């Protein structure tokens, strides 16, 4: 099927992706489960479950709620912690040849810095800094909303991080354009957006919010038009590469994000509809290129 003259491969901040489709953090674990269900080697990359310096048990209560065309989640960054990940989960991916993206959240600048110092000694392709998880009380949200607060963590991490550094932006940011420009100015290699939108659901029988934390993160097709607009704005404002995500479910969605300026895309919630949906997206993009006689996605990237 691969047309010799046409390639989906992209150079993403110096990391070569065999195609621009990456699974989004938190929706694919550390790859082991989907690896048993389909050939994850065909993916452009995997953004692994969000880590924090120490183990986190995650949130209590209901963690998932469906909305028309979307889902809300309140996992609360349940994860084994960076040291455990580096010794146990990361090595399980060593034989795969896709881009390995390590996603890191934190509750204080010190925690981010300590975690990065540990991760510096391990081999992977990109560090994706999650400054935007809306689930953790007093956590990620604070960093990602205000540009000047985010600057501190981005700047400090950049100084010590030995990997390619990609900052994952929150759509809840006060000013997503200034936030993205700050990331570029502080020396980030790339940007990914968007994380989930802060949202709410009420159980009218219990007369209480559905989620113990009150709010939760909305993702899925419901957010796609807003995510696309934000990716477009950010791509206009910075020159570093952007990984676009938010509700991407079909290859048409992925092409829209590329046209809006994204170098690559991530697929999250859609995998819950069909575990290997990302492979359908890759095939659909290749066929689109063949039909339109495109040799490289460059020809349509950022044309809007």
């Amino acid at each position, binding site marked *: 099927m691969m047309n010799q003259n046409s390639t989906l491969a992209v150079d993403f901040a110096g990391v070569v992706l065999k195609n621009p489709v990456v699974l989004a953090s938190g929706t694919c674990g550390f790859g082991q489960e989907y690896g048993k269900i389909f050939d994850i080697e065909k993916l452009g990359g995997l953004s692994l479950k969000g880590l924090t310096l120490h183990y986190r048990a995650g949130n209590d209560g209901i963690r998932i709620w469906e909305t028309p065309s979307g889902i809300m989640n309140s996992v609360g960054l349940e994860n084994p912690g960076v040291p455990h990940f580096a010794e146990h989960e990361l090595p399980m991916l060593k034989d795969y040849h896709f881009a390995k993206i390590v996603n890191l959240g934190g509750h204080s600048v010190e925690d981010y810095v300590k975690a990065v110092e540990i991760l510096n000694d391990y081999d992977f392709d990109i560090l994706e800094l999650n400054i935007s998880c809306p689930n953790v009380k007093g956590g990620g949200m604070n960093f990602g909303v205000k540009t000047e607060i985010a600057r501190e963590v981005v700047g400090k991490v950049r100084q010590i991080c030995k990997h390619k550094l990609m900052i994952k932006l929150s759509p809840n940011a006060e000013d997503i354009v200034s936030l993205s420009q700050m990331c570029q100015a502080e020396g980030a290699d790339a940007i990914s957006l968007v994380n989930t939108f802060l949202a709410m659901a009420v159980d009218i029988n219990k007369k209480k919010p559905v989620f113990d934390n009150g709010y939760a993160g909305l993702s899925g097709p419901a957010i796609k038009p807003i995510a696309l607009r934000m990716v477009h704005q950010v791509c206009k404002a910075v020159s570093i590469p952007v990984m676009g995500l938010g509700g991407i479910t079909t290859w048409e969605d992925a092409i829209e994000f590329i046209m809006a300026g994204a170098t690559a895309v991530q697929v999250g919630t859609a995998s819950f509809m069909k*575990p290997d949906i990302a492979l359908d997206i890759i095939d659909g993009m290749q066929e689109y290129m063949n039909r339109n006689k495109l040799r490289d996605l460059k020809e349509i990237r950022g044309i809007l």
Partner: protein
Amino acid sequence: MGKVLENKKVSKDFFLMKVEQKNQALMGQFYMLRAWEQYPVLSRPVSIYDRDDNTVTFLYKAVGKGTEIFSRLKKDDEIKIDGPYGNTFPYVEGRIALVGGGVGIAPLFYTAKELKKQNPESNITIYLGFSDEAVLTEEFKTVGDRIITNVGGFITDEINPEEYDAILTCGPLPMMRVLYEKGKDTKAEIYVSMENRMACGVGACLVCTCKTASGNKKVCKDGPVFPAKEVFYDESK
């Protein structure tokens, strides 16, 4: 992709759906079902009610959008069926009680069959609790030595855990908790099948996490069956 062989109403809102699907599924496992394209976003986890090598039968209650779509499926319609997923009920022996509340009775049918097949000497009592209407009691009689039903009350009032070597249960959490409290100081080993909300169904998203005595567990992958004492542990200890 599976094909619907039969989908029949067995009570006001319970349906039995038989799907053509080659499988080697085990008692207590479940499938992620989907009979639509993109919406609703999530597939629905449904337990195995019965199976053979070429078919799987599901017992489901129409409670919302997804199960309502299932209820409209006709013979020869296609349904996406991913699985089987999860662990199994343990192969217990001796005097066994299977206790189901509402649609929680679903996984107990095939479990009773299997346990009997594994050890015909075992004596199986099936307790079925319903809120307003008993369903499939005749069918359950064919797989259990004794059937006890309760409509409108508490099925847990009917059981004396002392009489059993093992109790396997599936149903509303409060029911399973009462059962555990009743039986925890007896010799009966008690196992519960959990029904936490799910998204991926395979262990990749952590939305189905259950806190247990030995740490967080994924209901979809480490469960759905757990020793009751793991789930209803005393957090203060």
